[in-house]
């Protein structure tokens, strides 16, 4: 049913159930918003109506109405820019600013802050209401996320994301009135909560109330230490997003520029996590085949996503024998770098500093896990910096990123296949595994299938049947922890039978990771990054992990058999149950 309304005296007809904000947008009428967020495809819609910025005047209504959460009704006459609406909007923003630390110059979100942008948009030149601000303690306890709720505007996006989409439920408002603040259960420090550190709250936070833990200064220190060999490794999703902070169109692939920038920053070696992704496939595909052949526990769940791993440890401690025991790719990289690579380079392992450039904040926590250190020298991975942090480092170093010449990764651990690139988006890991499994199981087929498009897409939970050499593999894919929870509940209750499952904590996978450049509340950004990932894959001549020559060499020279003894020691890990709160 269509509803006839007028907005600023322009007649229009919109479907029943449309909000005033959406209707206005369809007419090209802009209404400023703050708390509102609609990432429709991943079902993340924050329509809580808390900020009261998008207020509009509607004929016959006593009060102003929030356009983001008011649906149209027949004959509605909406005015978006009357004096009353505009002045109310300004006062609301002034109120928010009156309770906000005005330290924009030194703020993490300087020039990238929705509140700042809103104040500029509304032309706020003076804050008429002055009074004390709410003081809260900054929580830097976790290795991943810094909570500074003095900068919080209580938009509740983090809560919606964490509670409804991720079903983790770390945040909830506590206290009343002016003292209201987003809190954790029993006021615990972030490190002591069941937070998975996926960082999706950071992704949607409009201000710097939630930010990543900044590790750049530690990386600078290592780079400037002449005794250290500092090795950078870059995750698949970085190369399709790093151009954004430098003004390149969303979806631009900047692999070569990224390598060049890392060298200019001063990394001794620039290598690729994609190499380790290929290594992961070698191990994971072997493990899958091993489990199928030896009647092991099925389904096998991918374990590359550290947020997802922490989630299952908290939420499904009885299912800890299901995930693959494979370390995540960058951890494998670290383990190999500090053994095999150290030998090759002829340096002591403790001279090597591995820095992972990740689209992810959970990787920062992961790098600190006890079981992921000690076998080599210190931690497998020393530091993790996010895409956003790398962009800051590039700026800090005065590098003109846009005009950089493309460069190639360093040898030994720099080669990668198309299969590893697609790790960066939902469905990619499992597709990479299937590519290799298909080739291995179907030895007689000279041209085994490569593109398993049935595994791709943005649907929250996807199922597909893949037939390889007469064997039917039932595969499921979930991205977003809420979707993962549904799938795991089904598995726990024995309602479904799958062979293999890929789970990524972040909606859309690593391209939408918590450490990626802010997506500007635009789901198209994530889609374009994913498309770029598949383009990168297609551009590769080698697209199956086991065909990576450097990987073959690694096994021949050092590891021996995939899923063998040495591999177990260096490339596999274990999980431990954690409290549900």
């Amino acid at each position: 049913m269509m509803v006839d309304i007028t907005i600023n005296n322009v007649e229009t007809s919109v479907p029943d159930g449309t909000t005033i904000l959406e209707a206005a947008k369809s007419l090209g009428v802009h209404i400023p918003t703050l708390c509102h967020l609609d990432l429709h495809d991943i079902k993340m819609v924050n329509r809580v109506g808390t900020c009261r910025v998008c207020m509009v005047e509607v004929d016959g209504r006593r009060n102003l109405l929030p356009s983001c959460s008011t649906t149209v009704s027949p004959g509605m006459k909406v005015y978006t820019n009357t004096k009353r609406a505009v002045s109310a909007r300004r006062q609301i923003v002034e109120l928010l600013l009156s309770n906000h630390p005005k330290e924009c110059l030194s703020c993490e979100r300087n020039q990238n802050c929705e509140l700042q942008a809103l104040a500029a948009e509304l032309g706020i030149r003076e804050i008429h209401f002055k009074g004390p601000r709410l003081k809260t303690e900054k929580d830097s306890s976790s290795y991943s996320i810094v909570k500074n709720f003095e900068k919080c505007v209580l938009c509740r996006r983090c809560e919606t994301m964490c509670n409804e989409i991720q079903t983790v439920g770390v945040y909830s408002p506590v206290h009343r009135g002016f003292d209201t603040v987003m809190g954790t259960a029993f006021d615990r420090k972030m490190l002591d909560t069941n937070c998975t550190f996926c960082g999706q709250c950071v992704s949607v936070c409009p201000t710097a109330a939630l930010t990543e833990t900044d590790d750049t200064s530690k990386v600078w220190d290592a780079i400037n230490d002449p005794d250290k060999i500092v090795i950078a490794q870059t995750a698949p999703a970085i190369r399709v997003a790093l151009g954004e902070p430098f003004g390149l169109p969303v979806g631009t692939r900047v692999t070569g520029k990224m390598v060049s920038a890392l060298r200019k920053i001063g990394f001794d070696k620039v290598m690729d996590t994609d190499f380790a992704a290929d290594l992961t496939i070698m191990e994971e595909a072997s493990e899958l085949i091993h489990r199928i052949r030896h009647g092991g526990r099925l389904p096998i769940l991918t374990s590359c996503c550290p947020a997802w791993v922490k989630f299952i440890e908290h939420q499904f401690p009885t299912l800890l024998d299901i995930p693959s025991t494979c370390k995540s790719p960058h951890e494998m990289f670290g383990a190999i770098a500090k053994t095999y690579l150290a030998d090759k380079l002829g340096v002591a392992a403790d001279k090597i500093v591995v820095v992972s450039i990740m689209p992810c904040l959970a990787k920062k926590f992961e790098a600190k896990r006890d079981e992921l250190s000690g076998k080599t020298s210190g931690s497998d991975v020393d530091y993790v910096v996010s895409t956003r942090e790398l962009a800051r480092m590039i700026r800090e170093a005065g590098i003109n990123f846009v005009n950089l010449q493309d460069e190639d990764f360093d040898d030994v651990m720099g080669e990668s296949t198309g299969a590893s690139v697609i790790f960066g988006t939902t469905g990619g890991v499992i597709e990479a595994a299937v590519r290799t499994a298909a080739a291995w199981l179907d030895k007689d087929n000279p041209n085994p299938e490569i593109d398993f498009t049935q595994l791709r897409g943005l649907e929250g939970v996807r199922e597909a049947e893949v037939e390889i050499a007469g064997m039917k593999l039932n595969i499921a894919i979930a991205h977003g922890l809420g979707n993962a929870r549904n799938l795991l509940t089904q598995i726990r209750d024995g309602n479904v039978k799958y062979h293999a499952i890929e789970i990524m904590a972040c909606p859309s996978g690593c391209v939408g990771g918590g450490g990626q450049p802010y997506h500007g509340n635009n789901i198209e950004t994530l889609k374009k990054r994913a498309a770029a990932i598949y383009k990168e894959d297609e551009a590769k001549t080698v697209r199956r992990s086991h065909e990576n020559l450097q990987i073959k060499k690694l096994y021949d020279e050092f590891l021996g058999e995939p899923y063998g003894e040495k591999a177990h020691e260096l490339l596999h890990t274990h999980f431990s149950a954690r409290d549900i709160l």
Partner: protein
Amino acid sequence: MTRQIRIALRNCGVIDPENINDYIATGGYDALAKAIFSMSQDDVIDTMKKSGLRGRGGAGFPTGIKWETARKAKSDKKYVLCNADEGDPGAFMDRSVLEGDPHCVLEAMAICGYAIGASEGIIYVRAEYPLAVKRLQIAIDQAKELGLFGENILGSGFSFDIRLYFGAGAFVCGEETSLMNSVQGGRGEPRLKPPFPANVGLWDKPTNINNVETYANVTQIVRNGWEWYRQFGTEKSAGTKVFALAGKVNNVGLVEVPMGTTLREIIYDIGGGIQHHKKFKSAQTGGPSGGCIPAEHLDTPIDYESLIALGSMMGSGGMIVMDEDDCMVGIAKFYLTFTAEESCGKCTPCRIGNMRLLEILTRITEGDGTEDDLKKLESLGQTIKDTALCGLGQSSPNPILSTLHYFYDEYMAHVDEKRCPSGTCTKLVGYKILPEKCTGCTVCARNCPVNCISGERKKTHVIDQKRCIKCGVCFSKCPFKAIIRG
């Protein structure tokens, strides 16, 4: 008790609330029996609509229409909720009904359940009302024992059960959607409306929610018919309203009068006038959501519309009478302190706006206010009214806006002359001893808690203004009226 007509309170002070037989003897549960045996669901709703009963919790929404919406909503499960989270400062009519006549609320909820097609009722009652809780539970138990609740009531086939849910004292939980969040175990925060509770309520099921006093009218309407009820009150506001009369009035207490009674009748005829023969200044109605009505409007007949026209509202029926000694800026500050503290903090205007309003008011009462501050109060107050998420936030500036409107001079005295005309803003008050009247009796000096009054016996005393804490003890103790305030 003249001029009162007791419908909601008819059994309070008459029956023993802990004995169901008392209630039954007054005709109790006949209304429920009448509804289920001789009326269709639509008959009941029709009766409620024609009676003109409107929600007594504050907003005055027509009860019959609310019931009708819940009746029309399609669902396998519906709820009847009773809002017994009375939280306005100075309002206690709901508590009195629950303590004096719990069955009338229970019976009404069952009637509502029958009308809308619900089989479960929940009373959200403040845990701070232990006696009401106790009597409600006794009433529920006794009624269940007689088969008046539970399965197959009176053999009719209609089943209805009631249980209690305790509120923890957040003011905002008196707002219906916050109340439902609270019952569901969540944080007491309002939801966006629409959807309204009648369609999407408790656990997202259609829910009818009325407050105690509204339900207290229902049994009499069903028993006596809507025509009977219509004879009381005004065209738009039918029936009676209970007011909790408090403040500087002689007969403090609960009064139930027909809608349309004037403030003057309530305060002077029933309330016995102002204490100590002082001058009436203002009546605050509607609690923190209401406003202050000045003397020139004493003869306005009270109903929902007239109070809103005066910048106040019916609210739950608190009525606080103020005399010449009350500072209207101070009163506004009192209510703002309450709302700022009780705001749930969900929306910006209520969370930050009310705090900023309070800070401005505090400045004014401490002599640091400017005329510009008055403009800010007005404009920010209007914005909060325009933009807050729930009814509580939208009405929170009313005490300021109405006092600004009616008592602007008093505000001006505070900001312009740094003077509090009623002498209650301590920072603006000073005490002085008039030499011509002081006899040197030493009473003031002996009673001064900070010993800042000096002077020899039988000689004029002096107050050391630097040390004076402006407590006013000397002023009230001086037997010769030699101390002036100003």
